C-alpha cells in the first residue's frame, strides 16, 4: 500500500508527516481511491484495519483527529458484526453517515481543485509591483468592526497571563487507565478480543483511550494485534509484534 510507504515515523514517535494528508477524511478517501472501492459500499473491516495501520505507519497515531476517525471506523465495524434480526426495517446502515461525510468531503476536494486551477492561472498575471509612496496626506480610512473587537476581547482574555484564570477540565482521554486495564487483561489471560478491552458500555472517550493504549503497547512491542480472517475480530495477544497491526 503506497500510503504507508510515503512516510516514516521518526525515533520519538512524534508526528512527522502530518502535512501529507489534510485530515483523516483525506487519508480515508486516499485509501478508498487507491483500491478503487465503491464509496457507497465500503468494506469497513478492511478499510478500518488499513486506516489504523496507515496512521500508525505515518506517525499520526497521536493526533486526536485521526484517532477519532479510527475509533469511529472500529465502531462501525463492530456494529456491522453484531447480528441483526431479519426483516428489520428500522435497521440503518451504520456506514451511512460516514458515506455522507466522505461524499461531502469529495465535493470539497473538487472545489479545491477548481480553486487551485484558478489561483494558478491568476498567479501568471502580475499586478503593478510598485505603487507610489504615501505623500503627506491624512491616513487612509479606518475600518473597525464590532465582531472583530469582540473576537479580540475573547483572544485577549484567553491569552491573559493570569494563573487565576486557569480552569481545570477533566481530561476526557484516560490512556494511562486504559493501558493498565489492557495490561491487567493480558496478565490474566494472555490474549483477548478487542471488544473486551473497551469494557462494558464504553464511551467514545473510552474507545479512543483504549485504542491509543493498545497502539502504544503495540509500538513498544508489548502486545501483538492479530486478525485471523479479513472480517474477523481483532485479538490482542501478549508478546512482541513483528509488524504493527
Amino acid at each position: 500500500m503506497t500510503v504507508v510507504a510515503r512516510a516514516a515515523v521518526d525515533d520519538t514517535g512524534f508526528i512527522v508527516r502530518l502535512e501529507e494528508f489534510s485530515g483523516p477524511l483525506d487519508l480515508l478517501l486516499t485509501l478508498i481511491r487507491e483500491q478503487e472501492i465503491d464509496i457507497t459500499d465500503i468494506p469497513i473491516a478492511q478499510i478500518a484495519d488499513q486506516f489504523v495501520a496507515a496512521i500508525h505507519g505515518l506517525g499520526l497515531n497521536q493526533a486526536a483527529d485521526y484517532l477519532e476517525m479510527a475509533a469511529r471506523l472500529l465502531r462501525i465495524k463492530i456494529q456491522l458484526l453484531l447480528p441483526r434480526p431479519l426483516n428489520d426495517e428500522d435497521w440503518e446502515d451504520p456506514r451511512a453517515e460516514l458515506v455522507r461525510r466522505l461524499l461531502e468531503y469529495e465535493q470539497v476536494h473538487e472545489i479545491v481543485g477548481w480553486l487551485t486551477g484558478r489561483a494558478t492561472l491568476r498567479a501568471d498575471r502580475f499586478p503593478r509591483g510598485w505603487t507610489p509612496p504615501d505623500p503627506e496626506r491624512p491616513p487612509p480610512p479606518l475600518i473597525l468592526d464590532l465582531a472583530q473587537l469582540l473576537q479580540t476581547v475573547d483572544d485577549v482574555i484567553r491569552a491573559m497571563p493570569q494563573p487565576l484564570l486557569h480552569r481545570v477540565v477533566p481530561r476526557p482521554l484516560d490512556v494511562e487507565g486504559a493501558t493498565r486495564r489492557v495490561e491487567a487483561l493480558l496478565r490474566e489471560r494472555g490474549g483477548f478480543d478487542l471488544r473486551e478491552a473497551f469494557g462494558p458500555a464504553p464511551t467514545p472517550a473510552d474507545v479512543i483511550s483504549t485504542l491509543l493504549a493498545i497502539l502504544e503497547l503495540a509500538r513498544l512491542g508489548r502486545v501483538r494485534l492479530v486478525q485471523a480472517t479479513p472480517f474477523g475480530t481483532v485479538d490482542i495477544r501478549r508478546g512482541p509484534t513483528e509488524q504493527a497491526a
Partner: protein
Amino acid sequence: MDRLSKLLEAALFSASRPLTLGELRRLDPDASEADVRGALESVRLRYDEGGHGIELVHVAEGYQVLTRPELADMIVQAQLVDRPRRLSTAAMETLAIIAYRQPVGRAEVEEIRGVAVDGVLRLLVERGLVDVVGRSEGLGRPLLYGTTPLFLELLGLASLDELPRLDELSVALTPLVAVGPDLAP
C-alpha cells in the same frame, strides 16, 4: 485617449488593488456611470489592440490592470518578479468550505474537514482572504467567517457568482450552501 480614460488609466496604475466602478467615478464627479464604463472600454481596447504587455481585467467586483499571462514565465525567469506562494491543501479546503457556506462558523468547517482548523483559519484571516463577518445566534454566539475581496482578486474572479455551481460538480450531493447547524441532508 480622452481625458477620462487617461485619468482612469493613471488611477488603476496607482492603486495596488482592483477599483470598483463607484470608486472610479469619484475621479470625476461630472462623469456618469456610462461615461466611466465607456472610458474603461476604451482603455481595455487600447491595451488589447495595441499589442500591449498589460491588460485591463474585471476582477473582484472591480477593475485592475495586470500583465498578460503568456509573459509570466519570462519575467519570473529574469528574476524580476516572484509568483505568489501557493496555499497549503488544508488552507485551500478551509477556504473552499467558507466560500460556499459563508457566513459559516468554525465548528461547521471542522465538521466537514474532520480536523481542527484554528491555525489555518487564523492564517487565512491574517492573509486577508477570510474575515469575521458576524456572529451566529447559536450557543456561545460563535464568530462567522466569509471571504474577502482579496480572495476574489487572488482567484481572478469578478464575483462569488463565478464559483462553479454545486450542480455542476461531478460529486452531486445535497447543496453545500444550505446553511444550518445540522449538516445532515
